[in-house]
């Protein structure tokens, strides 16, 4: 079964389109204000990560033609959600701890309970948009965003659901900055809609890209070797993993142009893989051709995940 990308949504301080992920250069920008993107309604009591997730979800679903002013254009149980974030509810957990220590549990707000559960992004998005398909939160470290794309594709291939909204979200706040040793997370979200190719064709959806093979292995070299074996080709572009300063050795896919998204955008963590896929779509839109190998997780991490994206065939 072929799985394609039919929607993309970008919610970052300096970018709101797939192509701008590759071109935006300004170093300072105002933080995203969710109220201006999706309206005030329903944002109260939601943590920053969930609010950012709402924005990217709204944009991706609209781009896919699944959402209009009258609501969802397809059956609610035909849409699943897979969200990825590592740092999403760090603020709620540390905040609750401080409040309990200072004022006992009676000082906490009952409205914080759902935010203490790490899957609050995925389920809140499902509730807001009425998406009743499988709902999964991936919190898997450096590879998490790319893993989320993979699990979404698997859900579709296994026949569990027709289309899946994939989200990568990381918020910037004080406890997150402390955990990252003073560095800032992207404070944004990126969304994709993955869809069964036949279903996409049936409703006349525009196809941004085709999802190819995926692997996860211990180390960049092993991952790339496995991906090359499975894919059987040479990529036209390599999307590099976020590293702690380590460099992916130049002899790996020597000569293939490389793009380092994390270098331009700050700590992307669990959002990276989804961002990389969106940036790849931007690259295809800018007339880039040929398969793109997307890598997340460096040799400093527990593993590297790799995914192949192809430019959509013209039908």
């Amino acid at each position, binding site marked *: 079964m072929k799985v394609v990308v039919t929607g993309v949504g970008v919610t970052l301080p300096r970018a709101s389109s797939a192509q701008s992920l590759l071109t935006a250069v300004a170093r300072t920008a105002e933080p995203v204000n969710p109220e201006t993107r999706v309206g005030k309604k329903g944002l109260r009591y939601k943590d920053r990560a969930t609010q950012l997730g709402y924005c990217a979800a709204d944009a991706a679903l609209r781009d896919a033609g699944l959402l209009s002013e009258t609501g969802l254009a397809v059956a*609610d*149980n035909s849409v*699943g959600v897979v969200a990825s974030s*590592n*740092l999403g509810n*760090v603020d*709620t*957990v*540390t905040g*609750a*701890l401080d409040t*309990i*220590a200072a004022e*006992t*549990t*009676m000082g*906490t*707000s*009952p409205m*914080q*309970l*759902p935010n*203490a*559960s*790490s*899957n*609050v992004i995925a*389920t*809140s998005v*499902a*509730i807001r*948009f*009425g*998406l*009743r*398909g*499988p*709902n*999964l*939160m*991936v*919190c*898997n*470290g450096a*590879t*998490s965003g790319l893993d989320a794309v993979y*699990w979404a594709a*698997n*859900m579709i*291939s*296994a026949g*569990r659901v027709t289309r899946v909204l994939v989200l990568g979200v990381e918020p910037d706040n004080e406890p997150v900055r402390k*955990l*990252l040793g003073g560095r800032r997370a992207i404070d944004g979200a990126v969304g994709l809609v993955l869809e069964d190719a036949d279903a996409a064709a049936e409703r006349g959806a525009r196809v941004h890209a085709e999802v190819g093979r995926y692997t*996860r*292995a*211990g180390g960049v070299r092993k991952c790339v070797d496995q991906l090359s074996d499975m894919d059987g080709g040479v990529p036209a572009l390599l999307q590099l993993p976020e590293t702690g300063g380590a460099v992916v050795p130049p002899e790996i896919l020597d000569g293939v142009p490389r793009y380092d998204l994390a270098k331009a955008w700050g700590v992307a*963590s669990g959002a990276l893989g989804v961002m990389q896929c969106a940036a790849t779509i931007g690259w295809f839109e800018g007339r880039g051709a040929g398969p793109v190998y997307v890598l997340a997780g460096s040799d400093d991490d*527990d*593993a590297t995940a790799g995914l192949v994206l192809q430019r959509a065939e013209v039908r």
Partner: protein
Amino acid sequence: MSWYITGSGAVASVGRGVEQLFTNLCLGQTGLAPLRGFDPEPYRARSAYEIDDRPEPGRDVPGRATSVLVEAITEAARGAGIEDLTDVPILVGTGLRELRSLELWWRDGVDFSADRLHFGTALRERLGAEITYTFSNACSASLYALAMGSDLLALDAADTVIVAGVDVLTESMHGLLERVHATPPDRVRPFDRNRTGVLMGDGAAAIVLRRHPGPRTQGLLRSVSVNCDAYHVTAPDPAGIANAMRASHELAGVKPEDIDLVLLHGTGTLLNDEAEATAMAEVFGEHSGGPLMTAIKSMTGHTSGASGLMNLVVGLESLGSGVVPPVVGLSDPVDEAADFRFVLGEAATADVSVAQLNAFGFGGINAVAIVEAVR
């Protein structure tokens, strides 16, 4: 579908290792005790079902979730005769990841880094595993992981998969859960009219799922269905739960009357038990008095992300031995569950072949699995 379950492992407050855990559950033993790992002073609820593994009482240490997870995975892999885990996908379902370690870092300054929030870093170091996934899907996490694992077999992406679940208490979740209870719960009493709510428990469980039978096949996984209510961030919706049950029956090709045993989610909260009983009664209809029913959270506490797989591990033991642990603390069932054949008082002995396992999580994420005995 039919996948072979060829190994299992579990750790909980009531027992370490599947054998000890199952024996103690059948004896009706509970792991309830005063809070072991943090200062009880700021809390009204001062008991939980914790694993007694701290180096000294009252002093918490980081990495406990990781350590019981590794213990359960190791037991399951050993049982299945698997030595090299490098290329075996390990899917971990959890509600709270290593958030307890994050808490100790934030407040006490213990050593911790972001790459320890998920379990992959430790599973690589300790077990050499490279294909690992941490799914944080609240209280249905491990059955969601089971669904994703079974898809890997269905899609020919693997021949062997390890699925696990784990959670240990965090202060933030213990505290916020307590906050929403009118009366602080003193124990978990699933489906009892006088239940006061839920208390958390520590636990980890793991199974080995294979395309082919192993040296010791413990059961067959026939289906796992997953969905989302898209209704409320904490309250369950009986309609969504009922849909998940019907889907699991359809996938497995069974009818309600074919099911001999149900291991209920049964958290002891006012909302869950009512919604779960309503959905069960609706789906099982005239057969709702048919299967034996039990709720092991009455003894393990709510092991959150581990609880679905904990039900699976216990259910497999029941299918194999014909012994079903009782629901402790249940004396006056709620109206919605009036017809149910709960195992009460002491363990029941029965010939059971097909079991249903329920797990529901915050945000209305439902997962229901069907397993079958191997004769």
